């Protein structure tokens, strides 16, 4: 009990003596835990809005799609269907009663209690002002449908022959309002309403309801049935959609043995008597959840990157303080503290701070989650309060403690093994000597000569600095790689329009990268200041021997740039590899000029950041420092 009290008292006293270092440590770990908390609480936030939308629109339990693609390819019969066949093709490409008759097997299947449709779907190019985009135009009836009656959120349902109702998520992306004029394949329509539906995934995933689309990420527009049929072309003939309501006693996924449904690879379904693909409401929900999932994935990966950066930050902070703590270690040992007790004293302070950071992370994550959990305009209502589950809390605490332990364990063990006499003598840690670098540096101008020697005298600190730069550059390169991919995805002939999925990825990446940059700025400032303090004596001697303050400032900055160089070189391919790994090995090209800009920008950024503490240090009075060194 007494020991625990003493450990607590020593930890509290140290925090009081070094409030800035404690605050920086707390900040570094909190950045990682808050980001992880955000990533974790986003799980499942679309469930409620989707179910709400489904209830309000008499949403289907399953939607069957019959695609008439332009490619003249023999449609596979039920017997020929196997894994990998997900896209269905017609052989005549003509709308006909015969083709939709194939839905009869489904409408009369056991357990199907209601249906609506089949509805014709035409593919059209939609123009509104300068913006163009591909859309699926679903021909609907004026009368209310028993299954999937889209719910009007603004305006009214279609009544006239040139009326159009636009899916709300797509309308938001394009900035379409009720009363706007739009053009579909050159035909003019008036937007009379905006609506939500549970029968198709939210924009931009609508094409998944049919499994095929001539356009990437098409929007969804409802027009009168005859208008949709008129929009069909030889190039893009009509497809059909059928909404099904199942018996409540049955699950939403069809049991294959009972209903003749075969599950294909990728989770799509196929009926033995209907040449159509079937998607269940659970699968639509999953598609909607993808919007949040990409955001959650970016935040989770970001939290691990921030965790790595936090390890480097905390290691620098703890390492910087260890020189000062050696005398304290000597005193503790002199009064009988065992090496284990000394290690615990050092560890416990940082672990307690890490627990504080975990708590702060949970609170920040919980408070900030509503900013990221909006389900999208295509669903009704909001996600509600994010849930903090015990598992989430455990993961966040594990991250915080892991960071603190990784960063503190080595200095704590080193302190525990330190000789009591040496610790009490408060001898400065000997710098590392690198004869090769010292010799090579003689050929360099004074700032680089001193900079190379400074970087070489504390290799561990240089490695930590390089590591933190590598993590940051990895993230920055990953972000620009994703952005480059987004730019390359803009389709010829269509204008770039807002994409909720892209927007969400960009928001998450912005959040992660700005937090990371904030941490790396603090790191760079702190590492430079620590280097300046540590190298006070040799730098002051250099000034006494004729080095100017400007040369000293430049040498301190050069030391940081030299440390950052390997981190930058490693970080660039690591960022590209990270995105390639997350996109399942697909190569994502990044313009070389962007990578060169990252390389130069990083080194210039480090030079600029480090120059501030370096300049402060370089202008300290020489005589005062030299006098203080007199023993």
């Amino acid at each position, binding site marked *: 009990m007494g020991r625990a009290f003493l450990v607590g008292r020593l930890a509290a006293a140290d925090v009081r003596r070094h409030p800035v270092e404690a605050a920086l440590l707390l900040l570094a770990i909190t950045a990682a835990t808050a980001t992880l908390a955000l990533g974790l609480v986003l799980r499942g936030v679309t469930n409620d809005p989707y179910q709400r939308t489904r209830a309000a629109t008499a949403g289907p339990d399953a939607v069957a799609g019959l695609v008439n693609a332009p490619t003249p390819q023999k449609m596979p019969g039920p017997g020929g269907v196997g894994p990998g066949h997900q896209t269905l093709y017609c052989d005549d490409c003509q709308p006909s009663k015969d083709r939709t008759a194939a839905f009869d097997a489904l409408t009369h299947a056991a357990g199907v209690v209601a249906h609506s449709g089949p509805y014709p779907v035409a593919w059209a190019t939609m123009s509104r002002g300068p913006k163009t985009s591909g859309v699926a135009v679903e021909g609907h009836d004026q009368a209310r449908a028993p299954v999937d009656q889209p719910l009007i959120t603004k305006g009214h349902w279609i009544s006239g022959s040139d009326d159009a109702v636009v899916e709300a998520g797509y309308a938001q992306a394009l900035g379409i309002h009720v009363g706007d004029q739009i053009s579909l394949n050159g035909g003019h329509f008036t937007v009379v309403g905006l609506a939500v539906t549970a029968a198709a995934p939210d924009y931009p995933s609508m094409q998944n309801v049919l499994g095929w689309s001539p356009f990437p990420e098409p929007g969804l527009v409802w027009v009168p049935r005859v208008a949709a049929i008129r929009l069909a072309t030889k190039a893009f003939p009509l497809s059909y959609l059928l909404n099904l309501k199942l018996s409540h006693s049955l699950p939403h996924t069809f049991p294959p043995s009972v209903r003749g449904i075969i599950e294909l690879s990728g989770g799509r379904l196929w009926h033995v008597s209907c040449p159509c693909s079937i998607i269940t409401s659970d699968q639509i929900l999953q598609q909607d959840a993808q919007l949040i999932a990409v955001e959650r994935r970016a935040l989770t990966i970001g939290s691990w990157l921030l965790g790595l950066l936090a390890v480097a930050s905390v290691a620098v902070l703890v390492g910087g303080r260890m020189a000062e703590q050696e005398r304290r270690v000597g005193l503790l040992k002199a009064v009988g503290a065992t090496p284990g007790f000394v290690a615990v004293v050092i560890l416990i302070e940082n672990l307690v701070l890490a627990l504080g950071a975990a708590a702060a992370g949970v609170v920040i994550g919980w408070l900030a989650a509503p900013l990221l959990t909006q389900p999208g305009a295509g669903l009704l209502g909001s996600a509600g309060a994010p849930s903090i589950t015990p598992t989430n809390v455990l993961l966040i605490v594990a991250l915080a403690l892991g960071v603190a332990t990784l960063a503190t364990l080595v200095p704590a063990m080193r302190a525990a093994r330190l000789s009591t006499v040496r610790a009490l003598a408060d001898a400065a840690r000997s710098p590392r000597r690198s004869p090769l670098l010292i010799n090579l540096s003689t050929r360099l101008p004074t700032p680089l000569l001193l900079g190379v020697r400074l970087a070489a005298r504390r290799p561990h600190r240089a490695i930590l600095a390089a590591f933190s730069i590598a993590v940051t550059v990895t993230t920055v390169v990953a972000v620009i790689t994703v952005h480059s991919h987004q730019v390359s995805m803009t389709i010829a002939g269509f204008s770039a329009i807002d994409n909720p999925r892209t927007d969400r990825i960009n928001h998450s990446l912005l959040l992660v990268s700005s937090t990371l940059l904030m941490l790396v700025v603090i790191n760079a400032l702190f590492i430079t200041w620590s280097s300046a303090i540590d190298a006070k004596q040799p730098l002051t*001697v*250099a000034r006494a021997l004729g080095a100017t303050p400007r040369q000293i400032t430049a040498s301190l900055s050069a030391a940081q740039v030299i440390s950052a160089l390997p981190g930058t070189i490693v970080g660039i391919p690591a960022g590209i590899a990270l995105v390639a790994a997350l996109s399942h090995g697909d190569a994502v090209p990044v313009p070389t000029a962007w990578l060169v800009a990252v390389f130069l920008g990083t080194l210039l950024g480090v030079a600029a950041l480090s120059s501030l503490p370096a300049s402060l240090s370089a*202008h300290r009075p020489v*005589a005062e420092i*030299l006098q203080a060194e007199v*023993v």
Partner: protein
Amino acid sequence: MTDRVGSVLSARRLRKEYGAGAALVQAIKGVDLDVAAGETVAVMGPSGCGKSTLLHLLGGLERPSAGELRLDNARLDQLGEHSLARLRRTSIGFVFQAFHLVEELTAAENVELPALIAGHSPRAARVRSEELLEHVGLRDRAHHLPSALSGGERQRVAIARALSNQPEVVLADEPTGNLDSAATLEVLRLLDELRAGGQTLVIVTHDERVAATADRLVSMRDGVFVEETRLSHGSAGRIGELAGFEG
């Protein structure tokens, strides 16, 4: 004090103050000093009398609060930080009580440092370093780190470093303050050799035996010069005798 004409280093009404108001400390209270070329001047006085501050002012490590300071007729008190640094490279050599050698550099690398900072080639710096280490009797210790050298050896390395760029004047601040008797004798002999070789020296000390090596002794108390004595002395044997370390 000596006339300014022919002086390498001169100070007029030199003042240095720290703080303000009630906390004002007057470290140097209007000092006049002239050091002729090749002359060795010892400034002696008790701890805290302002001798180290005077040395820092003379070497441009601190700026005077008032007064005039010249080195080879250049007004040090009017130079900026950058110009002072350039002047230290070429015209001033420092020897410190605490040696102030760079720990991770060998003796030779420490001696090379001023030459490299001054922009000399690595080869020229190495040649000069070898000459100086030979001169101070440490050629065989050239590749040892400071931690492997004795106190006297470290101070001899520091003296060699101070001479690297052939300065007009060498300023030594308590050069034997951290040394034992044997090491003190080594350093005294070396300083005497420098004096004999015509090197201008200003040595600050509170040790009478060190002061006895000088051509002129200036006594300092409470920031002012109180007495000046011209000394006459002979060989290194005389120094040893004065210092009381030999026979």
